[in-house]
């Protein structure tokens, strides 16, 4: 057992740290998503030029060939220094790894470089209005027509579809076989007639997510990934990559938020004139969140050790995602509780605390227990796949 970084891992961290200190462009611009995406594209170009895009991808595909621990160090350090997100998060974390694992040589040649540069943004077309947690029930239909597939249906919760060139699309190619076997994984060009993305306004008032409508959209047959009928297996790889790749960044963000929460508590007065940081009740709550966050961080390192030995992330990752959403929601809820009567005041209000950052956090974090697998479904996965309890279905 050794929780310290090896000399080479420590050297890697120092390199990352130094580079980020010199190159981090700072906070994202305020205003609309268009400005934010332009800012992120520029940041990704800079990352790519310095070899920090696709760090866990093999070198032969333009990546850095970093180990899982080095990847964890990078995303953790970037989050700690509050560096912006790259523009093409889904391409880097999911699209590229899927093409590398399941794609043909021609696909690797075509798609990987523009993912790394951020020139082509990727989105993910999995969920549908009637197929959320029960993803394998999806109805979007793809029918072969000559050397093309013709696709009709609807996707939803598609992050950044409005900026995407490529959609990782899961569609039903054979309705007559058991449902997991009738699915195929496509790369669909978003820039065509027959594809329309409409932003969904969230409870924060923003529109990260979209509905995507496909009406006889066309996909050439060479854009199938992993073979017709193998879509389910390919999609599962993507989801596991997503979770494993994002975990350490999410953990570092929680640590940043906990530091901000402690500062908030030190600044806000409670009855009697002392600060929330001196209030026994708030001290207990803050301590508990810090304890849970530390348990999550340590569990992630235990999971990483296990994954590095077995090669694939296990179902235990579901525990981490569940706990992350609990902590993220819990700390934003506590911040509003500390703010007391000021809790309704959001960005723009003269008396808003921290310019409404916690109000935004409170609202945005409602999605944490839904996006990327609802907590309820994660509990099912844990019960069935970790504990071996029987399935209800």
């Amino acid at each position: 057992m050794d929780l310290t970084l090896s000399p080479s891992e420590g050297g890697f961290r120092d390199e990352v740290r130094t580079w980020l200190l010199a190159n981090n462009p700072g906070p994202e611009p305020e205003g609309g998503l268009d400005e934010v995406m332009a800012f992120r594209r520029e940041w990704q170009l800079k990352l790519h030029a310095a070899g920090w895009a696709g760090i866990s991808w093999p070198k032969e595909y333009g990546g850095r060939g970093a180990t899982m621990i080095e990847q964890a160090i990078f995303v953790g350090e970037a989050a700690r220094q509050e560096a912006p997100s790259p523009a093409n998060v889904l391409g880097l974390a999911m699209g590229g790894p899927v093409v590398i694992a399941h794609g043909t040589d021609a696909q690797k040649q075509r798609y990987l470089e523009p993912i790394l540069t951020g020139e082509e943004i990727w989105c993910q077309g999995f969920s549908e209005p009637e197929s959320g947690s029960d993803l394998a029930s999806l109805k979007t239909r793809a029918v072969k027509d000559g050397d093309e597939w013709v696709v009709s249906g609807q996707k939803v919760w598609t992050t950044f579809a409005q900026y995407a060139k490529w959609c990782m699309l899961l569609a039903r190619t054979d309705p007559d076989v058991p449902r997991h076997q009738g699915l195929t994984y496509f790369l669909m060009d978003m820039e065509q007639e027959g594809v329309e993305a409409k932003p969904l306004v969230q409870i924060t008032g923003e529109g990260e997510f979209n509905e995507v409508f496909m009406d006889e959209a066309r996909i050439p047959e060479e854009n199938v990934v992993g073979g017709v009928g193998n879509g389910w297996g390919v999609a599962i790889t993507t989801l596991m990559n997503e979770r494993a790749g994002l975990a350490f960044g999410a953990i570092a963000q929680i640590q940043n938020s906990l530091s901000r929460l402690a500062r908030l508590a030190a600044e806000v007065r409670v009855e009697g004139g002392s600060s929330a940081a001196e209030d026994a009740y708030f001290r207990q709550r803050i301590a508990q969140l810090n304890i849970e966050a530390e348990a999550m961080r340590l569990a992630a390192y235990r999971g990483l050790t296990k994954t590095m030995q077995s090669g694939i992330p296990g179902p235990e990752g579901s525990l981490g995602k569940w706990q992350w959403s609990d902590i993220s929601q819990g700390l934003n809820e506590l911040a509003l509780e500390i703010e007391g009567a000021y809790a309704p005041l959001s960005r723009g209000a003269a008396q808003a605390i921290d310019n409404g950052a916690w109000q935004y956090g409170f609202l945005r974090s409602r999605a944490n227990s839904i996006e990327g697998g609802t907590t309820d479904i994660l509990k099912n996965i844990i019960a069935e796949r970790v504990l071996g309890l029987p399935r209800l279905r």
Partner: protein
Amino acid sequence: MYFDLTDEQQAIKSTAHDFLASRFKSERIREIAASEDGSDAAGWREMAELGWTGLAVPEEWGGQGLGIVELAILFEEMGYALATSPLFSNTIAGLALTLCGSDDQRERYLRPLAAGERRGTPALWDAGSTATPGAFAMEAQADGADTILSGEKILVPDAASADFFLVATSDGHRHLVDRAAAGVSVRAEESIDATRRLSTVSFDGVRVAAGDTLPASGSEYEHVFDRLCVALAAESTGIAQRTLDMAVEYAKDRQQFGRPIGAYQAVSHRCAQMLLETENVRSLVYGAAWAADAEPESLPRAASMAKAYASDAGWRVPNASIQVHGGIGFTWEHDLHFFLKRGRANAAMFGDARWHRERVAASVFAGARAPASS
């Protein structure tokens, strides 16, 4: 970065697991729990032969010289088996002598303790006090070079079968007192946990020779305290794991409405919650145990995080297991109540969840930094 047990540590774990499973079967735990002094002489000899009485005692004093990670592994298994044994209180005495004793005291007390020949236990808290860590009221009255002790120490674990006590006084010192010394009397108390006896020990003008007062004082005992908290939290981890295993096994087996109850989400999600808490406390315990051995400056915060979480999970997980079992889980005949009771008693010992959370809060607001590996 490697956060898992090494092969050697895994071997310690499986040896402990197998030995304890064969030694502490349900009937035997019940026999010991119902006995006069709650001790198990034969089991103790075997533990001594396995080297457990001196596991974390340095080799020069007859111990195995292993670390707190190995100690945590052992105590997790002790909890899993609900071993009815004074090994925990004896380990505290061993840590105190190792970290805070003089060589002469180590020769006279630590060497026989490591060999399993003499057992020690801490006598810390005073009757009528809040019995929270570090607050001791008994006065050390000087009489020439000697010290005279008078008063009542409460919540003393395994006192009836101990050979000596480490008695805390308000000046921050600990004194070695033999149970057989003039003026010492032990009165067993009733506790919800029959598997670990708690007693009140009276000291009526007990004379302590100068050489029996440990040289360390005050905050130096925090090194002992933090390590024993890790061991105790490890024991609660084992309790949680065992009662989770029992719940899962029962949920697979028990049929209602034509299905195993574990197929119902009301039950399976409860089990998932138990797993979350069990894995969390395990992560915190081994993180703190590693800190004790490799990064002691981060130990106080890590130990309190582990003990705070273990204090809650150590009884909540058995509690949830009782709920999964339904009526049978509420019977004396089923073993679950012993786990619930030990877990709840552990929660109260050496600082409860609230006390340790406050210690964590103090460290958060002092801006204490997370471990360097973060």
